[in-house]
């Protein structure tokens, strides 16, 4: 797509608006629990149902989460921000307005750096604003036969932050990279589980194109109903192509809102009736101004969770692993947490990162499992690695043991002892076996002593065979060499 753009002489100007559901225990303006998948309308009260007379009372935790995000992306916190009502009619909006923030949001500015493929430097996407608001309910439209739309109000009042970028994104790929980075930050801050399938993250995209080199912006379209990161990327590619075609055939772009149809992979304009909203924003009189004191802000600063880059740098320092490993391990908060839990019970950082990156992640990917709560805990991995490090089992046997751990959820210790896999590191035992093997191979020994050094490997094979593969190979090599040197004298 980027290629076709270059050829056509246009460049894309893209801005994203992301709604992130905050993972607080209760809703933003009432005490109802936040939970995905609860029975419809079971998590509601007079406040989130908008019953006559019910009033919102702000949940401070949601403010704290918003502050974490603003601080993390180096934005400016507005110390006195204002909630506003966004008025529109829809069955899943029980008050007839959404409590949001309008001209005085809690956060402004800030930036997120995204990687550029194949380059070391990063591209900075500037942010315009971050504001707090409540989510609406869910309309469950009739599947078939039914005449009614049902409404589930459980989601009403779930806290959201809306994160709006400046139009700094230039391609669908950059948009994708931005979303990946945003998700990573949200997860590291512990403020959003960022599962797009569950609607924790929702994205609208604004897109226009202009001849390369021109600074004036073209007319933009807004694309909604983007339900995955891939959908965002595809819908943008689709719309860029569409806009280029329109302009090249002498047409003009009309400002409008499009809906992405993921099934048919097309974006269709919304009916104009649906988009002609005048939201009649005005300050929410049921809430006082949101005041963030310096003291509160400092408290949040002091307890701000470590961001991925900072954590990766610490991993390099603290665990003595290569930068590459540290970057892989900090791709998600779960993985980073997992690694650190392994390191609480194990001493070799590099050995642990090797094992996790090659063995563990391979299994996780194959099983499409989630690392969080995976049946092989970090403690179990640490135990296994300790067996290798202390020489109790060889690296090769460790792989077999790990396979069995994956299959049976047994610990390494259980498997090793039940299968008698403990490596033989007993000097005298190994000496006995060597003596026996040399005694049984008199001819070969003579050949060796007469200069045929390559027979050394044959002896090792015999010894390993004799011990069922459990002899510590390092020790075998060492003692065998000593013995043969002795005989050669």
């Amino acid at each position, binding site marked *: 797509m980027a290629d076709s753009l270059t050829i056509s002489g246009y460049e894309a100007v893209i801005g994203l608006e992301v709604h992130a559901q905050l993972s607080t225990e209760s809703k933003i303006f009432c005490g109802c629990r936040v939970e995905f998948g609860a029975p419809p309308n079971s998590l509601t009260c007079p406040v989130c149902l908008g019953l*006559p007379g019910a009033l919102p009372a702000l949940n401070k935790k949601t403010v704290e989460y918003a502050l974490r995000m603003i601080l993390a992306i180096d934005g400016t916190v507005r110390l006195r921000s204002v909630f506003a009502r966004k*008025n529109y009619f829809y069955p899943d909006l029980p008050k007839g307005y959404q409590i949001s923030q309008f001209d005085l949001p809690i956060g402004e500015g800030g930036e997120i750096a995204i990687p550029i493929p194949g380059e070391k430097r990063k591209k900075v996407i500037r942010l315009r604003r971050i504001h707090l608001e409540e989510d609406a309910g869910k309309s469950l439209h009739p599947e078939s036969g039914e005449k009614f739309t049902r409404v589930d109000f459980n989601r009403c009042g779930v806290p959201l932050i809306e994160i709006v970028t400046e139009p700094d994104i230039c391609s669908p790929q950059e948009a994708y990279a931005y979303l990946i980075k945003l998700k990573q930050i949200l997860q590291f801050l512990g403020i959003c589980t960022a599962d797009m399938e569950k609607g924790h993250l929702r994205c609208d995209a604004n897109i226009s194109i202009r001849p390369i080199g021109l600074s004036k912006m073209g007319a933009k379209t807004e694309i909604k109903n983007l339900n995955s990161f891939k959908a965002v990327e595809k819908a943008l590619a689709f719309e860029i192509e569409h806009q280029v075609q329109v302009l090249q055939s002498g047409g003009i772009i009309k400002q409008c809102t499009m809906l992405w149809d993921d099934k048919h992979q097309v974006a269709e304009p919304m009916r104009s009736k649906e988009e002609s909203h005048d939201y009649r924003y005005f300050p929410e009189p049921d809430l006082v101004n949101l005041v963030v004191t310096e003291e509160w802000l400092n408290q949040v600063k002091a307890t701000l969770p470590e961001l991925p880059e900072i954590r990766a740098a610490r991993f390099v320092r603290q665990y003595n692993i290569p930068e590459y490993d540290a970057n892989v391990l900090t791709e998600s908060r779960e993985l980073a947490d997992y690694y650190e839990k392994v390191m609480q019970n194990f001493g070799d950082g590099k050995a642990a990162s090797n094992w996790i990156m090659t063995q563990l992640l391979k299994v996780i990917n194959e099983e499409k499992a989630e690392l969080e709560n995976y049946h092989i805990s970090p403690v179990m991995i640490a135990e296994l690695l300790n067996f290798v490090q202390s020489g109790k089992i060889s690296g090769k046997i460790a792989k077999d043991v790990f396979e069995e751990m994956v299959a049976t959820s047994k610990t390494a210790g259980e498997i090793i002892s039940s299968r008698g896999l403990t490596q033989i590191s007993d000097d005298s035992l190994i000496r006995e076996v060597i003596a026996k093997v040399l005694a049984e191979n008199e001819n070969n020994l003579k050949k060796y002593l007469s200069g045929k050094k390559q027979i050394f490997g044959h002896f090792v094979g015999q010894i390993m065979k004799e011990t069922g593969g459990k002899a510590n190979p390092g020790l075998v090599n060492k003692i065998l060499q000593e013995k043969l040197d002795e005989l050669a004298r």
Partner: protein
Amino acid sequence: MIAEYSKLSAMDIIKGLRDKSFSAVEICESALSLAESKGRELNAFITLTHDKAFAQAREIDRKIHHNEDIGPLGGVPIALKDNICYTDCPTTCASHILDKFIPPYDSTCATRLISAGGIIIGKTNMDEFAMGSSNENSYYGPVINPIGNNLVPGGSSGGSASAVAAGIVPIAFGSETGGSVRQPAAFCGIYGLKPSYGGISRYGLAAFASSMDQIGSFARNIKDLSLAYRIVCGRDENDSTSVAFAHPDYPDLLESERKFQIGIPREFFLEGLDKEAGKQIDNAIKLFQKDGHTIKEISLPNSPLAIAIYYIIAVAEASSNLARYDGVKYGLRIKDDDLINMYDKTRNLGFGSEVKRRIILGTYVLSAGYYDAYYFKAQQVRELLKRDFETVFKDVDMVLTPTSPTAAFKIGERIDDPLAMYLSDIYTAPANLAGIPAVSIPCGAVSDGRPVGLQLMAKAFDELSLFQIASRFAKLGE
């Protein structure tokens, strides 16, 4: 029926119960039977809450029998305006659109009344969604002023005012957005309080204009009025705009030798004020002067703009607050296969014409392109008005004005002239805009016997001064 029940004050009832002169059940019976006879004539109630009331009365009697504390309002019958939620009893806001709506929760006001031992006997009639100044805008029909002659009781809390004036209950609660307690109190010849904004929790009060709405109270004497306020006032976590403030036991502090500085704003005594009513106010000023209080002429230069900005801000907030009545979740629904048609039909049939007028006005003033000219500008003027009061209260303890430009008018007299009706609020709206407390107290009558109300306003959370001066005035009149 207890003899002279309708003349008993809340304090009388509390004393009588403690002395065992009568039981709480007897009091409750008296109140409810009067509500059924006299109350029906006046159309003062929309719902009577017999079952809950008697259950509470029996509980009070049991406590008295066991010498347990019955609470500061123990056994006193109370009426609530029908926009204040009370669990398991219909809350209609006198609107067709809230047909069959029964709140599953208590307003903070109801909660505090019940825990103080009060007995809620019914929900009173009102102007639909508290929009009106005559109580003629009710889906349940107009309320009649108990003083007779087919007069309006004032509005929008006409039912509560009427019920107290008729002696059905000693205390009733109403709500204020722009005079809806004070004006009916004046029209019915009783006491009415609009507290400071934030004085009483709004949690459970169906909203009209959130930035001005306050629950207020009616009584036939100042002691009951101050008691009613004392019970329900104070910070509530459920209402972010409620305020934590010092609220002493007002009824014990009424007797005071304080000499007040009283300001008379010249803007309130110009054209439009009924001559006879004005004369009663003048007499009152002279009485205060004679009693040693200082009278000062003052100016509230922005007060002539109050009614204009009030009707911008109030309708703007109302258009948003009433959006929830859409036929989706509760109340009336006129079915249609198309969602927009369902909204249209339900709201068209469910709301009365005054409510619709205000929703349309409010939607207009908030619309893109008009917001700055109307809503934003009105908020700026509101700030100026607040400053007017702040300046004045550096000089005086309180401001004295008439409550209403005229005494009660006849039913039907102004119903076709919304502008004349809106001007009923001309003296009361400034206190709502400024968020300050105000009382209306009885102040004589015009020659045909219709009562006149005197309004006193003080700085925010200085309800005590208002209670004290009102108490003093009642003594002076004796």
